[in-house]
C-alpha cells in the first residue's frame, strides 16, 4: 500500500521557514498570500498500513512540535 505522510509544524509554533517564503512571494509580485507554513512530505510503500501511526509517533514526526496526517493512496503506483 502506498502511503503519504504530511508533517507540519504545530499551530502556534514559530515557523521561520514559512515566514521566509511568505516574505519572498510578495517580492515576486504575488499579493494576498498569508499563513504560509513549510512542512515535510514522506511517501512510502507499507505492507501493514496500521503501523503508520506508530511510525509517525516514534520516528517520522516529533509529536511535541509537529502534527502529522496519514493518507493512504489507491493503487500500487502513486
Amino acid at each position, binding site marked *: 500500500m502506498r502511503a503519504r505522510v504530511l508533517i507540519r509544524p504545530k499551530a502556534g509554533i514559530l515557523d521561520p521557514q514559512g515566514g521566509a517564503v511568505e516574505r519572498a512571494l510578495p517580492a515576486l509580485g504575488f499579493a494576498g498570500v498569508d499563513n504560509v507554513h513549510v512542512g515535510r512530505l514522506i511517501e512510502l510503500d507499507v505492507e501493514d498500513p496500521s503501523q503508520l501511526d506508530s511510525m509517525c509517533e516514534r520516528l517520522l514526526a*516529533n509529536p*511535541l512540535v509537529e502534527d502529522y496526517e496519514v493518507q493512504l493512496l489507491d493503487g500500487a503506483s502513486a
Partner: protein
Amino acid sequence: MGDAELIWHGDRDLRDADAIVVPGGFSYGDYLRAGAIARFAPAMESVVEFARDGGLVLGICNGFQVLCEARLLPGALLPNVNLRFTSRQVQLDVVQRDTPFTCACAEHSSPSLSIPAKHSWGRYHADESTLDELERHGQVVLRYAPGANFNGSLRDIAGVSNEAGNVFGLMPHPEHAVDELTGGSTDGLTIFQSMRLTVEGARV
C-alpha cells in the same frame, strides 16, 4: 574518574562508565530531524538505562538533540530563527548552581559562562505548561544572557535538565571552551569539573 573512552554507536557496553557525554557534531546525517535517528542507536538504549539508574548524562549540541528525541529531556530543538548555521561565542547565565553539572560554578569568579555555540537547530521549544513546570522544578539550568539568544530559544533557555537532575543538555559547546588559545575562555571546564565533583562525591 579515569580517562575518557569512546563508545561506538553500535555498542551496548558502556564499560562501567562513571558518566556519559553524548557529544555534538552530526549524527546519521541528521536526516528527518536532528538526532531523530541517532536516538535509536544501540548505544542509546544503554544510555537510557544508565540515565534511568541515576547515572550522569551530558548532551552537547547534537547530543542535546538526541537526548530530547530520546525523551530523556523535555522539549525539542527547532531550526534557528535566523535559519542559518551560526557560530559565535555566547554568554550564558548559570540559573541553577547546585546541579551535578554546575556545582563547580560556586567557586567560579564569573556569574556567567562564555562558551562557543555553533549550530543550525538550536531553538529550544516546549509548550507553555512544560516551560512553567521546568522553571518551577529548577530544570532551566542555563539561559542565554540578554542579547545572546541568537537562535530564538523560548525563555532564553540554553540548557535544561530532567526532573531528577542527572541528565542535562545544552546547545553551546563547553568542551570547546577548555583552553584559552582555542576556546575564547576556559569556562567550559566548569561543567566537567562539576560532573567530576559529583561522581567523586558520590563515591566517597
